[in-house]
C-alpha cells in the first residue's frame, strides 16, 4: 500500500482529480450564487404581486371583503403553499392561516426572511412580505422549503460529479500505474540481469516512440557501449596477462639459470643485460598502456593547439627516412602546402609515427611508402600507403584492438598496441582512422577536421621549442 501511495502514476492521477474538483467548485460557486439571487428576487417579486392583488381587493371592496377573500384562498390552497395573515393595528389575527403574528417579524412594511417554527405544517423558513393597509397589517409569505428539493438535487448532482471524478481518477491512476509498472518491471528485470553480469540483455522496445520507449532506446545504446568496453577490458586484461607473461618468463628463467650455472663474469654480465632488456620490455608495455588510458580518458584535450599537419608529416617522414633507406624502401612525401588543424602535436606525431613505423615493418625490401597530406573539403587527410601484404578485410576491425597482432606480424617486434593507439588518438580528435586497400598493400588514412588557416605560423612556432631551450619530460627510459 505504501508503494501504491508513492506511485507516481497514482499521485499524478490524484493531482488531476484535485484539479478537476477545483474546476468544478470554480464552476459551481458562481452558478449557485446566481441561482440563489435569481430565486430570491423572483420570490420577492411574486410576494409583492400577491400583496398588490390583496391590496387592490382591500381598496376596491374594503376590509371585510379582503378577510373573506383571504379565508377563501386559505381554504382552497394546499397547506403550506402560501402564508397569509391579516391583522388589526394591535397585530391580532383577523384572517389567514397563522394563529398569531410571527415573532421576529416587525410590523413595518418590507421583506423578511424568518423562521416561523411551524413544525406541524412543515414550514420552517419562510420569506414574508409585510404591507400596511390603513389600520390593518397584511403579511404574505412563502415557504422556502418549496425550493428545497431543487437545491438538494443540485447538491446531489454536484456530489455525484465529485464522486465520479474521484473514482474515475483513482481507476485511471491504478490502470496507468499497472501498465507503467508492468513496463518498469520488465526494465527492472533486464537491469537486474545486467547487474548480475549478463550484459547481453536489452530493454524491450516498441515501434511507437513514447517517453519510456525513448528512454529504453537510450539505455540500450548505453548498454551497447558498456558491453563493448567491458568486452574490451576483458580482452585487454587477458592480453596483458599473456603479453607480460612472456618477458617475465624469460626473465625468470634467465635469472634462475644464472643462479644455477654461475657462469664466468663476462657471461654473467651479458645475461644481466639480457634481464634488463626483458624488464624494459615489460615497462614499455606498461607505458604504452598508460598512454592509451590517458588518451582514452580524454585528458589531453587541453593540450590542443593549432598546428600544421603538413609540417608534422614532413618531419615524421624526415625522421624515418634513414630507416627506410636501410631497407631500400622508397619513402615519399606529398603535400599541397600548409594544412592547419587543431590537435595535440605530440599525440598526432606519435600516431603518424606509428603508421609509418607499421608501413616500414610490412613493406617489402625495395618496396615503397607514400605519406600524403591532402585537404578534402572540411577535412584534412593524412594517409600512409605501403605496398606490403595489406590487411585482410576480416582482420581490419581486429587490428585496432588492443594487443591484437595479425598473422603477418608474427615474428616482428612490437606489442600490438600501435594501431589501437592511432585509433585512440583519432577518437580523441573527434576523427577516424580508416584502413583502405592500396591494391596491393595498406592505405591507412587519418581523417581530421581541417581548420581555417589564420594565425597558424605563430602558434606552431610556440608549440615547437628549439632543442637548446628545453629539456622536456621524457616518456620512456631509453632502451639499449
Amino acid at each position, binding site marked *: 500500500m505504501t508503494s501504491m501511495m508513492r506511485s507516481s502514476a497514482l499521485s499524478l492521477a490524484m493531482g488531476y482529480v484535485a484539479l478537476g474538483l477545483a474546476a468544478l467548485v470554480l464552476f459551481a460557486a458562481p452558478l449557485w450564487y446566481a441561482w440563489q439571487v435569481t430565486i430570491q428576487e423572483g420570490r420577492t417579486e411574486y410576494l409583492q404581486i400577491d400583496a398588490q392583488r390583496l391590496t387592490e381587493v382591500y381598496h376596491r371592496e374594503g376590509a371585510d371583503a379582503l378577510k373573506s377573500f383571504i379565508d377563501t384562498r386559505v381554504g382552497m390552497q394546499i397547506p403550506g403553499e402560501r402564508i397569509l395573515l391579516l391583522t388589526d393595528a394591535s397585530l391580532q389575527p383577523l384572517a389567514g392561516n397563522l394563529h398569531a403574528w410571527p415573532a421576529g417579524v416587525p410590523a413595518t412594511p418590507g421583506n423578511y426572511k424568518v423562521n416561523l417554527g411551524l413544525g406541524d405544517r412543515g414550514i420552517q423558513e419562510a420569506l414574508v412580505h409585510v404591507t400596511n393597509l390603513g389600520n390593518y397589517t397584511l403579511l404574505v409569505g412563502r415557504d422556502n422549503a418549496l425550493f428545497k428539493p431543487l437545491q438538494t438535487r443540485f447538491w446531489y448532482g454536484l456530489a455525484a460529479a465529485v464522486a465520479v471524478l474521484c473514482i474515475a481518477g483513482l481507476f485511471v491512476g491504478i490502470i496507468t500505474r499497472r501498465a507503467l509498472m508492468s513496463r518498469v518491471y520488465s526494465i527492472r528485470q533486464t537491469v537486474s540481469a545486467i547487474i548480475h553480469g549478463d550484459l547481453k540483455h536489452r530493454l524491450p522496445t516498441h515501434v511507437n516512440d513514447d517517453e519510456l520507449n525513448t528512454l529504453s532506446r537510450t539505455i540500450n545504446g548505453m548498454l551497447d557501449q558498456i558491453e563493448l568496453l567491458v568486452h574490451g577490458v576483458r580482452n585487454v586484461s587477458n592480453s596483458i596477462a599473456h603479453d607480460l607473461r612472456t618477458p617475465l618468463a624469460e626473465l625468470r628463467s634467465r635469472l634462475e639459470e644464472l643462479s644455477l650455472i654461475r657462469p664466468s663474469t663476462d657471461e654473467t654480465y651479458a645475461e644481466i643485460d639480457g634481464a634488463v632488456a626483458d624488464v624494459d620490455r615489460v615497462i614499455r608495455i606498461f607505458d604504452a598502456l598508460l598512454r592509451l588510458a590517458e588518451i582514452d580518458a580524454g585528458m589531453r584535450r587541453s593540450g590542443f593547439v593549432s598546428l600544421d599537419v603538413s609540417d608534422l608529416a614532413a618531419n615524421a617522414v624526415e625522421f624515418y627516412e*634513414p630507416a627506410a633507406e636501410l631497407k631500400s624502401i622508397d619513402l615519399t612525401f606529398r603535400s599541397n602546402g600548409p594544412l592547419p588543424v587543431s590537435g595535440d602535436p605530440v599525440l598526432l606525431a606519435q600516431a603518424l609515427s606509428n603508421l609509418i613505423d607499421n608501413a616500414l615493418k610490412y613493406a617489402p625490401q625495395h618496396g615503397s611508402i607514400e605519406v600524403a597530406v591532402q585537404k578534402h573539403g572540411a577535412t584534412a587527410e593524412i594517409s600512409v600507403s605501403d605496398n606490403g601484404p595489406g590487411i585482410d578485410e576480416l582482420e581490419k576491425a581486429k587490428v585496432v584492438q588492443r594487443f591484437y597482432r595479425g598473422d603477418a606480424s608474427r615474428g616482428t617486434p612490437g606489442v600490438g598496441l600501435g594501431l589501437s593507439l592511432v585509433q585512440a588518438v583519432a577518437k580523441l580528435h573527434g576523427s577516424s582512422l580508416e584502413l583502405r586497400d592500396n591494391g596491393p598493400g595498406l592505405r591507412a588514412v587519418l581523417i581530421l577536421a581541417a581548420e581555417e588557416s589564420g594565425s597558424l605560423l605563430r602558434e606552431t612556432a610556440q608549440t615547437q621549442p628549439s632543442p637548446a631551450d628545453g629539456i622536456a619530460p621524457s616518456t620512456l*627510459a631509453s632502451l639499449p
Partner: protein
Amino acid sequence: MKILLVEDNERVTQFVVKGLQEAGHTTDHAGNGRDGMFLAASEPYDVIIMDRMLPGGIDGLAIIEVLRKAGKRTPILILSALSEVDDRIRGLRSGGDDYLTKPFAFGELLARLDALHRRAEGVNHETPLVVGDLHMDPLTRKVTRGDRPIALQPREFKLLEYLMRHADQVVTRTMLLENVWDYHFDPQTNVVDVHISKLRQKIDAEFERPLLRTVRNAGYTVTAGE
C-alpha cells in the same frame, strides 16, 4: 658534481648513490621531506634529485616551490612514479627543471643530471664548438673535421650540435628524441640509431679515430678522449 638526493625508497637510494659515486660525484641523501628541505636550503648543490611523494609531511613539489620562492636556483630533477602528462606539467610548473619517471635507467638519470648541470653553467650559442679536430660554427653552420669540410643536412646538424654541446657526456636516445626531433614519445623502433649511424658515416668514416661512440646500455657520446 655535488648532488642532493631526496628519496625515501632505500633500494632506489642505494642504487642511485652508488652509481653517482662511481661516476665521480659526491652525494648527500635525505630520506624525508623535512631533512631534504633543510639540506637543500642550507648547502650549495650543483643539482638536486627530488622524489615527489615523501614522508615527513612535506612533499617534493612543495619543497621545490619553497626553494624557488626563497630564490634558490639550483637545477632540480624530479624523480617520480607519477607518469601522466598532468603530473609532469605540475612538476615542471612548480619549478622543477626536468622530470624522469620511475622505473628509469641509471644512464638516463646520469645523462640528464649532466645536461642540467651544464645548462645551469650557461650555454653560449655563438662560440664555435670543438671536440678533438671536429669543429662546428653554430653561426655560419659550417662543420669541418681536420681541414675537410663536412656537409650535413639541417637535422643532422642539429643532432651533431646537441651531441657536441654535451661533449664527453652520455646522451640517451630519449634525450635526442626530445631535443633534436621534439618527439616526446617512444617510436618503438631504433630509428635514432639509424640517424646516428648515418651521422657517423659523415664525421667518422674516413678518420682513424672515431669521435661519436656508442655507450652500452645508455646512449651515445661525442668525445675526443680515450
